[in-house]
């Protein structure tokens, strides 16, 4: 049975289908290496957008630009919640305060904290008690804290990590750490959730769990999700739209069926002049299991 959330996971105010994030002719260079060339992309409220592409195509660089870890040389990133914000030059914590949360490809949890503390750390932007009242703790800070604890417990329920909430993150298995990291991003009550390979290195069962959590978060709470993933079966099943990057350029964008049929995509993945396509095989394989 699903419990109702005390407050919605989703902090966005705009209607489903409207543009939430607009990336305009983005260019990112590292010295002589060009990581992103003229990338345009639109993310719409309450959709699941998958970004795929071969290794080194610039997928993670794109996410890093959105969350403010990299600053692109050219182009704009505009984020819409109550109004339009240009986030291109903002610092990461300012972007986080606007409601963009993310997980990392290589787990970047706070290793020495418990799962619970990691999740509470994720809710950082919602905690407002002053330094003095925090030092005293008793009273306002405690009340605020218990309220956040209650909220974080709902995320623990959703991700089914009740049993490990008091465990130190460093002592957990890889799969559980990945799950805790999604929990930490969710604790921010994001309106846009960026997931960088949330299923990398997992077995089929763990992947199914994560896919279920992603769909839950998206369908029940309407959180927009941008997902980087290499498992084509999952990508084709889960996402509403797919964008394909190759050598820093966006070569295709569209629904899973459109992307599957796109010539450029087939070339990027298999080289030129081929009629065999791996996605179909992967998908039927996934359905068969």
């Amino acid at each position, binding site marked *: 049975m699903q419990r109702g959330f005390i407050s919605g996971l989703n902090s966005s105010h705009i209607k489903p289908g409207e543009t939430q994030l607009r990336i305009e002719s983005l260019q990112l260079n590292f010295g002589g290496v060009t990581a992103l060339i003229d990338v345009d992309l639109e993310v719409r409220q309450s959709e699941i957008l998958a970004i795929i592409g071969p290794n080194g195509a610039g997928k993670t660089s794109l996410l890093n630009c959105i*969350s*403010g*870890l990299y600053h692109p040389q050219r182009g704009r990133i505009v984020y819409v919640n109550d109004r339009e914000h240009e986030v291109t030059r903002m*610092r*990461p*914590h300012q972007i*986080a*305060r606007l409601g963009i*949360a*993310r997980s*990392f490809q290589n787990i*970047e*949890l*706070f*290793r*020495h*904290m418990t799962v619970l*503390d990691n999740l*509470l*750390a*994720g*809710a*950082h*932007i919602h*905690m407002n*008690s002053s*330094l003095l009242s*925090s*030092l*005293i*703790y008793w009273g306002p*800070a*405690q009340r605020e*804290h*218990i309220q956040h*604890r*209650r909220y974080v*417990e709902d995320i623990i329920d959703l991700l089914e990590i009740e049993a490990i909430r008091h465990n130190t993150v460093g002592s957990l298995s890889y799969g559980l750490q990945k799950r805790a990291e999604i929990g*930490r991003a969710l604790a*921010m009550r994001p309106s846009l959730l960026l997931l960088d390979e949330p299923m990398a290195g997992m077995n089929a069962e763990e992947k199914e769990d994560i896919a279920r959590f992603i769909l839950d978060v998206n369908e029940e709470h309407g959180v927009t999700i941008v997902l980087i993933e290499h498992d084509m079966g999952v990508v084709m099943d889960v996402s509403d739209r797919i964008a394909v990057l190759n050598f820093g350029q966006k070569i295709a964008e569209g629904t899973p069926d459109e992307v599957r049929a796109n010539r450029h995509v087939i070339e990027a993945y298999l080289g030129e002049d081929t009629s065999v396509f791996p996605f179909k095989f992967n998908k039927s394989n996934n359905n068969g299991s």
Partner: protein
Amino acid sequence: MISGIFHTTYEKDMALRRTHAQKIRIVIVIVFLLVFPFLANRYALTLANQVGIAVIGAIGLNILVGYTGQISLGQGGFMAVGAYTAGILTARFGMPWWASTIVACFTTALIGTIFGIPSLRLKGLYLAIATLAAQVIILWVVTHWSALTGGVDALVVPDPKLFGIKINTDFNFYWVTWGLVGIVTIAAVNLFRTHFGRAFIAIRDQDIAASVMGVDLFKYKLLAFAVSSFLVGLAGALTAHYRNIVTWERFTVDVSVLYLAMIIIGGLGSVTGSYLGATFMTLLPVLLTNLGRAVKTSFPLIDSILPFVQQAMFGLVIILFLIFEPEGLNKIWKNIKDYFRLWPFSY
């Protein structure tokens, strides 16, 4: 037979003392601290005051180094700022000791924050060198700005007074020191239950992830320096009022290293560890001196080599801890607690 600890409210689950054993232990510690001054002799009280001041300084340093991961070699310099501010204000301007102590805390917090600015760009060893510069600069100012600090001469501070009573005995000062230790402990423990402390730890563990979670690295690193220096300044101010004399020799880089040793041996990122480390490092030389005196009759040579033995022991202890228990005395204490909690089924 207890099968586990079950809490029915978040309030209870989030309490600091969650089990009966924990509650009993804290009561024992408090009762001991309250009874101790009535039973102890003057010598033991002197040590208790030194330990108390060291505990405050160690908690301060641990907030910065242990919890936030910003290595600092400026401890001695920051203590000097606290001691000289308090000393000058009381000795030259006749400010009451408690007022000068408060001003000293804020002054040190400010100076600490200024010297914390390099931490926004520097990490690890590089930051250590930058804070070492703070140490050198502060001591240089102290010894050269003679008009204000008295230079290399000692600054004499009058006895503190509270409610008309002179606090000039170790017994009286004990209550001041350990009262403040109590307040500082509660504040530090609470700090790490809230989002401020969590942000500090987050910066230590993964600063990039912390910034993506909405932690303003600039603000929180400087805040860590400020909070830490505030407490270090308090330790410095207490030193001034307790010793009645402020000299620059008491705040050299040796002190910085000594305090680092305290928190490493006690346990980085732990308030209990700060207690254990400060107590251990303050009492170790005393213990060695007493041991030297005890064996003096059979080894007359011991007198001349005792200072060297103390130095060597200092190094040896740090090395032994780094090898056998890098997490310090706090970890040993935890292991003991775990052993008895599971006893007799400790496997």
